[in-house]
Every structure is written in structure tokens, then in C-alpha cells.
């Protein structure tokens, strides 16, 4: 029972130290106020206990005191607010250069795809010292990806991409928990995060069966799902003529919609267009595309997104006007 017993969690990411510092500051402030209040309660209870010859003094209140004990706590919480918010922004903002992992959660397992395409279930191997970004989505109910040693957590929601990042600072094996109640085996939707030396990680990765990376897998899906019968991509036009917009260089740009509005062509838009193509139709096109609802898995959609993101036009920046834009 006392094996591995500890009162403090392991600290293994670039943000875990700073979060611990803020937590300890809060523990200190709380301890101060608890001791202050308890001492006053005990002291007054003894000093002003009812006894013969002692009676209560009628004291109505004191405006000075009210102001003092409003302003001091206010100043403290505002200080904590600023500290906590700055740190939160840091925890929420991934670095520009990072390894992109794709995570899908479903009752009751985690499926994780490495940037090179290999997948693992309920475990995540990462190289020490490398920034890692997880792009996550759920196949069913809400889950939450929680690694206590890194002090990070983010809900994994159906129909919504969420991201989480970390840079591990210590090799080791750490708990991965689902933190949002997701049904019967919620408490078994756990796994481990294995932080390895980069060379060791590479060795481990090479030991897995080779797999297509997400861009290659997405390119293959683009053909298998017959996307290429209507959409031009990577300079290849559909044999029967394009009935949908050219998808080369479209990712990341703003596209005009048939209803006159415009929309950023991003992961969310790609996913929605696959599942509900008519909802936000590109301007100048007919609503001919069928819905792929129920025909593609979330990890496949993530591959398609990776493929589309990789399609940069040969002749200019991504945001140059293209066929279909106005």
C-alpha cells in the first residue's frame, strides 16, 4: 500500500515547475488566512467567554475595517489573477515548431498517431525535450486528456478539434488519465506517456510496422473516397471537369460562401464540409457533394486535413486568389 506513496506529483514538463510555484504561493496565502481566522476564533473564544462580571460590548461595526478587509483580499486575488492568466496563456499557446500528433478518443481508449504515421493505443511515446502538439477529437462522448506529471489537461470533444501541447523535461513513464466522465469504463480509459531519449524514441518508432504518414494517408483517402472526381488537387484536374473548388493552396485562406459570407478554410471547415457539405457551400458551386457522415472515421478526417494542408500551390503564396474565390 505504501509503494510509490507520495504527497507531491512528479514534475516533468516545461510548465509543471511554474504551475507548482503558483500553487505553492496559493497554499501559502491560504495557510496565512486560515491561521489568521483560526487564531482569532480561538483567541476570542477564550478571552471573551461568558463568565460572571463580563458582558458583551455593543459594537456595531467599522467602515475602516470593512474597507481594509475588502481591499486587501481584492489586491491579492487581482495579483493571483494576473499571474494565473499569464501562465495560462503560456500553457495554451503552442510553440511554432512542434511535432504534430493526432489523438482520437473513444469509449474507452485513446488512439494516438505519430507525425510519421505509426499509431499506438493508450500510450504515447515522445522524445525528451521536443515540443509536442496534440490535435484531438472524440468519436463519441466528451473525454479529457490529462497528464498530471505535465500539469496539462484538455477536453476531447466530439465535433470539435482541441489542441494541447507540452515539452517533456524528464525521461520516464507517466500516467495518462481520461478526466471527463465518459461512461462505464471511464476509470479504465487510462494509459501512459513514455518520455524517451530522442535516439531511443527513434529506435522505438522504427520498431513499429511502417505506416503512411498523415499526408500520404490523406492523399490515398482523397482518391479512395473519390474526392478527386470533383476536386482538383496538386495540379491534377478531375477527368470529367471540376464540379467543386480546386483544393490546392486553399487551406488557411478565406473562402467566399454561397450565402455571401466568408469563412476560413481550416480543419473545422474541412470536417464540416465532409459531413455537411451543403451547410456552408463555396460561392459559385452547386450543392452536389454527398455527405460522408458515417463513412469516414475521425482519424481519417485528420489525415485528409493533413493532406489538404500540405497542398501548397506551385505558383504563389497560399492566399493568392484561386478558382472559386471571389
Amino acid at each position: 500500500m505504501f509503494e510509490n506513496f507520495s504527497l507531491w506529483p512528479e514534475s516533468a514538463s516545461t510548465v509543471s515547475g511554474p504551475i507548482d510555484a503558483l500553487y505553492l504561493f496559493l497554499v501559502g496565502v491560504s495557510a496565512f488566512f486560515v491561521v489568521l481566522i483560526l487564531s482569532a476564533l480561538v483567541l476570542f473564544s477564550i478571552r471573551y467567554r461568558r463568565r460572571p462580571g463580563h458582558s458583551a460590548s455593543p459594537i456595531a461595526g467599522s467602515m475602516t475595517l470593512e474597507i481594509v478587509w475588502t481591499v486587501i483580499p481584492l489586491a491579492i486575488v487581482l495579483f493571483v489573477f494576473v499571474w494565473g492568466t499569464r501562465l495560462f496563456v503560456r500553457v495554451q499557446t503552442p510553440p511554432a515548431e512542434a511535432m504534430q500528433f493526432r489523438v482520437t478518443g473513444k469509449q474507452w481508449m485513446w488512439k494516438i498517431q505519430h507525425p510519421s504515421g505509426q499509431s499506438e493505443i493508450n500510450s504515447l511515446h515522445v522524445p525528451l525535450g521536443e515540443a509536442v502538439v496534440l490535435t484531438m477529437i472524440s468519436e463519441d462522448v466528451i473525454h479529457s486528456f490529462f497528464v498530471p506529471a505535465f500539469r496539462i489537461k484538455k477536453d476531447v470533444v466530439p465535433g470539435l478539434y482541441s489542441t494541447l501541447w507540452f515539452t517533456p523535461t524528464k525521461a520516464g513513464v507517466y500516467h495518462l488519465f481520461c478526466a471527463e466522465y465518459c461512461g462505464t469504463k471511464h476509470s479504465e480509459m487510462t494509459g501512459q506517456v513514455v518520455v524517451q531519449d530522442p535516439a531511443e524514441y527513434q529506435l522505438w518508432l522504427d520498431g513499429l510496422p511502417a505506416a503512411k504518414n498523415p499526408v500520404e494517408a490523406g492523399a490515398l483517402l482523397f482518391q479512395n473516397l473519390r474526392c478527386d472526381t470533383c476536386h482538383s488537387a496538386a495540379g491534377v484536374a478531375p477527368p470529367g471537369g471540376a464540379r467543386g473548388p480546386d483544393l490546392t493552396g486553399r487551406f488557411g485562406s478565406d473562402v467566399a460562401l454561397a450565402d455571401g459570407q466568408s469563412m476560413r478554410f481550416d480543419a473545422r471547415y474541412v470536417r464540416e464540409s465532409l459531413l455537411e457539405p451543403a451547410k456552408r457551400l463555396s460561392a459559385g458551386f452547386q450543392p452536389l457533394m454527398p455527405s460522408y457522415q458515417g463513412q469516414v472515421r475521425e482519424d481519417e478526417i485528420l489525415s485528409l486535413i493533413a493532406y489538404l494542408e500540405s497542398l501548397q500551390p506551385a505558383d504563389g503564396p497560399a492566399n493568392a486568389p484561386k478558382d472559386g474565390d471571389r
Partner: protein
Amino acid sequence: MSADPRAVKPPSYLGGEYGMRSWLLTLDHKRIALLYLLGITFFFLVGGLFAVLIRLELLTPAGDLFQSETYNKLFTLHGIFMIFFFLLPSIPAVLGNFLLPLMIGARDLAFPRINLLSWYLYIAGGLFATYAMLAGGVDTGWTFYTPYSSTYANSHVIAAALGVFVSGFSSILTGVNFIATIHKLRAPGLTWFRLPLFVWAHYATSLIMVLGTPVVAITILLVAVERLFHVGIFDPALGGDPILFQHLFWFYSHPAVYIMILPAMGVISEIIACFSRKRVFGYEAVAFSSLAIAVLGFLVWGHHMFVSGQSLYAGVVFSLLSFLVAIPSAVKVFNWTATLYRGSLSFETPMLYALGFIGLFTIGGLTGIFLATLAVDVHVHDTYFVVAHFHFVMVGGAVMAYLGGLHFWWPKMFGRLYPEMLARITTVIIFVGFNLTFLPQFVLGYLGMPRRYHVYPEEFQVLNVFSTAGASILGLGFLITAAYLPWSLRFGRKVGANPFDAAGLEWTTASPPLPHNFDAVPEVRTEAYARVPRAVEPEEEPAHV
């Protein structure tokens, strides 16, 4: 015999009429309060039984006592019964119902029939929830998060949802009744700033009940609609938005926390004033802080959603507002503590509960600051840190105040005193058991143990064993209380109108009060808690000597 003044007194609200009918159709706020007391005690015992089973299962890391499915139903039903059928109605519907008219010198609440209807709605809601329990249970967590609750769960979600929905109307009607009563039925001379702080707290609570409850009622109904008719509201597979549910749910359920704690704060103000023999320090500050909590409480719901995927800016705004709502609570704690200064303190059971409340609520409130702090919340959200925090506020705060208030006004309600020494010892047992149960959970939470876990890694066991040990002590304390309070109804020492020598109109009428509360409409000429010398009748020996 004719010399005994009691012989010529008219019967109290407990006497006079007898029989089931006279109780089940009563319009007397005092009798309705006792009906609530019965219902609430029943659901508290049911919820408590589930807590015992949960703690037993968590004694070991493996899931060896129950299946996961069963465990999930246990914590769900514990939450549903404790929150919707015990905590929310506890102080307002029992003590508030009994005391508001007495405290303001009225004969009854403004709408006695609606008051009775409220009780029937509460019981009807409770029956739906009980049906859900007996038919096989519900496993969504008391939070009913979608799309799990609306599409995936295979348990009796609709019956439980209907229970919450129906009992919500009880809450709304009680709120309306209290607001009307406080506005219209105050005795001559009883201005707003002469009201007991208990009344202020219930006024603020009623505002939340009336403004917040409809939102959760509709939200829960929408879950049932999506479940039954597959209308896409919250499930993205049907074109809905699961995060929308969380916004709607917490828009009520965070203010609901204040429905549970504000009346508790009102009770504490009354007890502290009585046993210090003083006016509450900073009366206006304490009164206005109740309103500030009620208003600000509606603007902080997003702090339940810092890691849900809501925008960074929304998170920042909700964090700031959540820090602000901490201030009025802190102001109250400081004022209660200052009330003791230069008082004349005695330590009967209600006072022990009140002092315990101040200590535990301080810890509960301060750990709320941790959760309002964005970067820290990311780590402790949905862990045992949160479980410990809200049990400090709900049990350490609301339940302690409920028990304190129940003991304080017990002689008023029944004309007999609880056994003082036994009650004091029990208070200490409950206090020790509570701390041993929940303090280790803060540590567990920071270590990373997620809540709602049926099985857990071995390194968390030691702290869980402490917690279960504490829960046994806590449970024992509750059982002793549940034994001696009914015992005292028959065997407790008879007391007069004002056994604790408290200020306040409710202590000027007989114990137990007359059916119509006061023989003559009282007139109020003094501030709240003003200690006016009263002629002491022979039967009115103070109980504490």
C-alpha cells in the same frame, strides 16, 4: 392545576388538529416545514448510504466491491439526491419556511397554498428520482453532461431528469413565495435594515431560485427531448453542440451553489449573534454581501469550463469574475469573526457548529481561489481537489450550518431541548470525521487522481484509506444526531419561548409557536439583534446554565 399558566394556553401548531389529513393538507408554514424536514432527512439518508458505498469501494485500488456500472450509478445518485433533494431545499424549505414568517412577525407566508404545492412538487420530483434509482439507476453523473446523457447512457436518465425538472418548480415557487413574503408581510416598524440577516440571505437566495432554476429545468428537459426524439440539440452527431449544454447547465448550477450556501450564511449570522450576545459586526456589509454574491454568482459559470475548449478570452473573463465573487464571502467571514470580539461567548451546540462552519468555509472558499486561477485549474480540474473543495463548501459549509440551525431552532420548533452534552460531543465527532475525509482529497487531487474513478492507481491508496476512515467517523456522527434528535421530541427537557436568550421576533412567541404565530401583531422599534431587557417568566430559565 388551574395555577399552571400552560393549562389555559391554546394548543400549539403541533397540537389542535391531528391525523394524516390535517398534516397533508395543512397550509401552516410550520407544518409544511416539518413535512419538508421528513422528506429531506429521508433523501439525506439515501444519499448518505450511497456515499458510504462509494467510500467502501475506494478503500482499495481495484474495483472489487461493485461493477463499474454500479459504481457510476452510486456517485450519480449520491450527487442527484444530495444536491437536488437535500442541499438545495434543506435550509430554505425547512428553516426558512418555519422561520421567515416568525422572524418578520407575519402569520404565514404570502401564499400558503403555493407553499403546500411546493412540497408536493418536491415529493413528486423525489419520487421520479427514487423510481430512477429503483428501476436500475442512472449513470450520467449529477451533471448530466451531453452527449453522454442524451445519446450514449443506457440508464434511467429520463426519470431522473424529470425528477430534477419537477422539483425545480418547487424551488421556483418557494423563491416567489419568500420574495413576496419579505416584501409585503413585514411587521410594522420592521424596515429592511432591521431585518435579521437570515432574512436577507433568504431574499438573495430566492432571487437566484426564481431567476436560475428555469434555465436548468429547460436544459434538463432538452436532454430528455434529445434522448426521446433525437432532436439535435447537444449531440454533434445530430447537429447539436455539447458545449452549449455545459453553458446552460452551469448558468444555473453555479448560482445553485449559492442557493445552498447563502441560507447557510444566514443561519451562521443568527447563531453567532445569539451566542456572542452581540449585534453582527458590520450588519450592512453582511447584508449587501449576500446580494453581491447572488448577482456576481450569475456571472461566473464559465469557470467550470476552462479546459472544455471555450475561448481563451472567455476563460480570462470568467476567471476574473470568479475572483471577484470571493470577496463578499471573505467579507462575511471577517465580520463573523469580528462579531466575537468583545462579546460574551458561550458554546452550546449551535455555536460549535457555527465556529466549525467559519473554519471549514474559510478553507472551502480559499480553495475556490485555486480553481479560479486559470493555470492551476487546468491541472486540478475534474480531480479530487475539486471534490474536496465543493464538499468543504457543501458539507463543511451548508450541512454544518443546517445542523447548527436545526439545533438552534429545535426548541422553538418542538418546545424541547436536544441533549446538550451528547450534541456537543457529536459536533466534535462530525468535525473530526469531516476533516479526515476531505483534507486528504486535496492532496489526492493535486497528485492527479481524477474524480469519478472506480479503479485507481495503487499509489493513491493510502490517502483514500484515510478518507474512508474519516467518512466512517463522519457517518457515525450523523447517525448519532439522527438518533438523539427524535429522542428529544419525547424525552428532551421542556423549554420556554427563548431558551438561548436570543434576540429576534421568533423568540418572543411560544415554543412551539401557536398556529397563528403571534397573538398580537408585533411592532418593531429596534435594530436587528438589539438586546432589550425582557421580563423573564419563571419557565424561561436559560437552557445553558
